[in-house]
């Protein structure tokens, strides 16, 4: 095997350009003759657009064009990617999401007009000159009021604010209700999963270009999935033929879900570029990111856990209201349903699970998948109610989990929430956690904290998630409007080096380093001779992009399959060169040999023969050495983990300090442990941010109170402890060829309940009767809970 194959902590090749200022992000591109776009955005959360007058703006210096909602009445809306059916059989409500607001504005930041000018400053000045007569209406921002229909309708035409009322699994409902009614013990917890603003550090940006000579469009944009964006723009919104539209997602400065979706600004710059025949560029300010990026989470939940007196779980029942904001973003309907409800059995052998989710329109920014997407909400509800139950029954929180864990000899395991977990070993993870987090030493550390006047607590958590979403046939039955395969083309060049075109997109995940490790491992070549091409629809096969921790499990598997095809064909060529049959040829470490002999030929010579096919079996074999594979997974993958955190609470102020954060994860086969560790650390920081700091808050009138980095608390270096990450306790994924499960979201899933459990533990041990505090667990909330 070459150095730097699967399992090597190879340093990242992409770092060189990022560390020297040579990364090329969307805003770094300024094509010749670029014009600049700025948007007029609603300052009210709900309003009837009486008129939008752009005539004064159009006369401003440098202004090239103005647009309003009227200009896009004839084009399509930005669709939801997943159709959900309510419990009563009704399809979900899907009001149109136009390019620019028309008739009504529905959230603060909703764009209703745009200006394109010679310079950005001229465009911004002209936006100020747009005269909009918008009749402000009462806003509805609170989900309970929205469901009750007490105030306004976000979309008058659908006559309700409930998008759908979904049950999972409906056939389990009666049994679950009955089990809870008859159970010896029931623990109930009401909680809020706080709204988060993704805040990828690079604000969204888009450049539209149109070539009047060819009729070709090009969109350079901050996307996690350029082909998906192209499909949405082409098939649903603007109707540009796919073959006439290239979408380029160059270096992208983080996504975390928020750059999965097609946004109106992309359609606007393309339409404007066509009208003007010159490039049109838009770059969001951070303020625009806060107001108009899709947010995350925002559930209000009631969960009930029914169990025997000894803590054996009998049933979990969840009722959730999930905020979808003012419009349905592309994945907004699948996130609170199939990415949430299907995980509500957790790591446990509980026989009865039922989940009800009402998706609710409000006059707030759209809410969609954000790092973890539904699974953090599921894990948080479950792992919080389990901790509360353990406390009520006087059972150790580790023991109650172990008592109910699926055991390692029970796989494949059909969970009561409808998934088939293929592999895992939760007890071994918990064994490891007890050692790495030094549970035995906790009492001594607690005594030390007490001496310093601090309350110390230990919180734990176990999670399982579903990644690598998933068989296209299955998701189609469940309502998906797209397939969920991915694709790779492996092109061996005549001189033996290799270009791999992939459908996944790397925006921090290190694909340019990790994917070559797979190919190099299989072909026995130097990883440095393998390059990854991604992000450009004119170069790569049609792939679905990067989200849901799917890149390695799905696209990596496509790379694996395409490389297998390369080996198959190269073996046939080698057999001809060695004058034997393919079945007599073996391939090891880059060398084809006749079995049992020392007659051999190297991979490089075979590659050259493929492209210079003299003395070549041309009747049986095409020249060239290039193969494409589309990989459609047989199942989800099921990463799991066990996390622990110790916190100190200052009883005088309520301030929580995280003393330790330990994450043990089972990701299956790890291709690059350095990158995987980094992914977990980043996820932990986002989870800690949710638990302690971050909160997207709207007031009753629909103004976003935490609308800037001055008001929305992002985790900084001094908010975080040293993060301890261990992914050595691995069980292989049984159904994909690499054996990997996915690691991107784990940290953000496992850490919030761990920390809240630790804070409640600290307060309980300190003699306070506190069984829950909603996130973010801020000093004021902790202090209030202690002093109620």
């Amino acid at each position, binding site marked *: 095997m070459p150095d730097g194959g699967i399992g090597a*902590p190879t*340093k*990242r090749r*992409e*770092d*060189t*350009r*990022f*560390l*020297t*200022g*040579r*990364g090329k*992000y969307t*805003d*770094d591109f*300024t094509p010749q003759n670029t014009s600049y776009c700025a948007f007029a955005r609603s300052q009210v959360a709900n309003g009837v657009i009486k008129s939008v007058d752009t005539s004064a703006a159009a006369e401003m210096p440098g202004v090239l064009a103005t647009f309003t909602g009227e200009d896009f009445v004839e084009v399509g809306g930005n669709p939801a990617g997943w159709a959900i059916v309510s419990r009563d059989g009704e399809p979900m409500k899907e009001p149109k999401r136009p390019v620019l607001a028309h008739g009504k504005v529905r959230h603060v930041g909703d764009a209703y007009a745009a200006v394109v000018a010679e310079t950005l*400053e001229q465009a911004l000045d002209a936006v100020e000159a747009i005269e909009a007569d918008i009749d402000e209406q009462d806003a509805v921002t609170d989900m309970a009021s929205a469901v009750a229909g007490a105030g306004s309708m976000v979309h008058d035409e659908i006559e309700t604010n409930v998008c759908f009322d979904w049950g999972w699994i409906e056939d389990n409902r009666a049994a679950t209700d009955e089990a809870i009614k008859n159970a010896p013990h029931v623990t109930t917890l009401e909680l809020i999963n706080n709204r988060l603003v993704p*805040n*990828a*550090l*690079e*604000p969204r940006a888009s450049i539209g270009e149109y070539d009047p000579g060819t009729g070709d469009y090009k969109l350079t944009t901050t996307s996690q999935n350029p082909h998906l964006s192209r499909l949405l723009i082409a098939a649903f919104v603007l109707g540009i033929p796919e073959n006439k539209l290239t979408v380029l997602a160059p*270096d*992208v*400065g*983080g996504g*975390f879900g928020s750059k999965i979706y097609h946004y109106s600004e992309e359609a606007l710059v393309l339409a404007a570029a066509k009208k003007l025949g010159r490039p049109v560029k838009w770059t969001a*300010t*951070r*303020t625009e990111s806060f107001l108009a990026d899709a947010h995350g989470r925002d559930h209000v939940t009631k969960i009930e856990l029914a169990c025997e007196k000894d803590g054996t779980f009998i049933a979990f029942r969840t009722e959730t209201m999930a905020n979808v904001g003012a419009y349905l973003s592309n994945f907004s309907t699948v996130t609170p349903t199939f990415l949430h409800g299907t995980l509500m059995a957790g790591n446990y052998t509980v026989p009865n699970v039922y989940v009800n989710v009402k998706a609710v329109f409000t006059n707030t920014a759209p809410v969609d998948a954000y790092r973890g997407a539904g699974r953090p909400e599921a894990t948080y509800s479950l792992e919080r109610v389990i901790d509360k139950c353990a406390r009520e029954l006087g059972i150790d929180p580790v023991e109650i989990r172990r008592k109910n864990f699926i055991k390692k000899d029970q796989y494949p395991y059909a969970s009561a929430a409808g998934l088939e977990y293929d592999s895992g070993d939760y007890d071994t993870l918990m064994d490891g956690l007890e050692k790495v987090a030094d549970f035995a030493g906790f009492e001594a550390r607690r005594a030390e904290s007490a001496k310093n006047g601090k309350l110390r607590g230990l919180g734990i958590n176990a999670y399982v998630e579903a990644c690598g979403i998933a068989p296209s046939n299955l998701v189609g039955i469940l309502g998906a409007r797209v397939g969920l395969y991915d694709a790779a083309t492996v092109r061996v060049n005549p001189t033996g080096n290799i270009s791999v075109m992939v459908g996944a997109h790397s*925006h*921090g*995940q*290190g694909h340019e380093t990790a994917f070559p490790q797979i190919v190099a491992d299989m072909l026995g070549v130097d990883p440095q001779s393998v390059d990854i091409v991604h992000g450009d629809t004119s170069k790569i096969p049609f792939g679905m992009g990067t989200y849901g921790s799917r890149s390695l499990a799905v696209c990596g598997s496509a790379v694996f399959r395409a490389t297998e095809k390369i080996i198959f064909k190269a073996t046939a060529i080698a057999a001809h060169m060695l004058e034997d049959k393919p079945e007599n040829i073996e391939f090891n470490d880059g060398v084809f040999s006749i079995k049992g002999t020392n007659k051999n030929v190297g991979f490089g010579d075979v590659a050259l023969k493929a492209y210079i096919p003299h003395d070549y079996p041309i009747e049986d074999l095409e020249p060239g050495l290039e193969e494409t594979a589309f990989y459609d997974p047989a199942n989800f993958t099921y990463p799991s983990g066990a996390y622990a955190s110790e916190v100190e609470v200052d009883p005088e102020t309520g301030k929580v300090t995280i003393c330790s954060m330990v994450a043990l994860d089972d990701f299956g086969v790890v291709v690059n*442990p*350095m*990158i995987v*560790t*980094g992914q977990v*650390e*980043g*996820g932990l*920081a*986002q989870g800690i941010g949710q638990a302690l700091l971050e909160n997207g808050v709207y007031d009753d009138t629909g103004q976003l109170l935490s609308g*800037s*980095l*001055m008001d929305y608390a*992002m*985790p*900084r*270096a*001094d908010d*975080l402890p*040293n*993060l301890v*990450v*261990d992914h*050595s306790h691995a069980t292989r994924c049984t159904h994909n060829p690499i054996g990997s499960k996915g690691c991107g979201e784990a*940290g953000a899933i496992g850490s919030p309940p761990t920390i809240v459990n630790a804070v409640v533990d600290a307060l309980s041990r300190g003699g306070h009767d506190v069984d829950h505090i909603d996130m973010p667990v801020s000093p004021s909330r902790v202090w209030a809970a202690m002093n109620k």
Partner: protein
Amino acid sequence: MPKITMNINGRETSAEVENRTLLSTALREKLHLTGTHIGCDTSQCGACVVHVNGKAVKSCTIFASELDGANIDTIEGQASPDGTLNVIQQAFQDHHGLQCGFCTPGMVMSAAALLKENPKPTEAEVRDYLEGNICRCTGYQGIVNAIMAASGQDVPSIAAE
């Protein structure tokens, strides 16, 4: 528009800028030094940190027109002309101190300023100094490790296995 001349990464460079043009915008739009990034509009994120006359400055907090005659160092001037990374840059690569790369120029420039002031900072001092630089990807662990390593101090192995 005023014309200003600055010494940027060791080279005399002139540009015409509006009075309202920030240094960050001037670097990116007028001088095509797009390594300096703009991540916010409230001077919170630190992606635009450069050195002005040897001191770390968020380049979105200062007007370019005030800087006639100033010495400016940006991320583009940190590596050797042949691309060899400097000690801090190399430590960021060695310790996985970056993922998407967007905050990285500001982080590297802040780290350089820190180590100039305080060549052997404690971990707590590193974390405190980076208060003005937001990274959304790394959880800061790789960044802190990189800066400790760049100062010649031991850091735990980054790979858990």
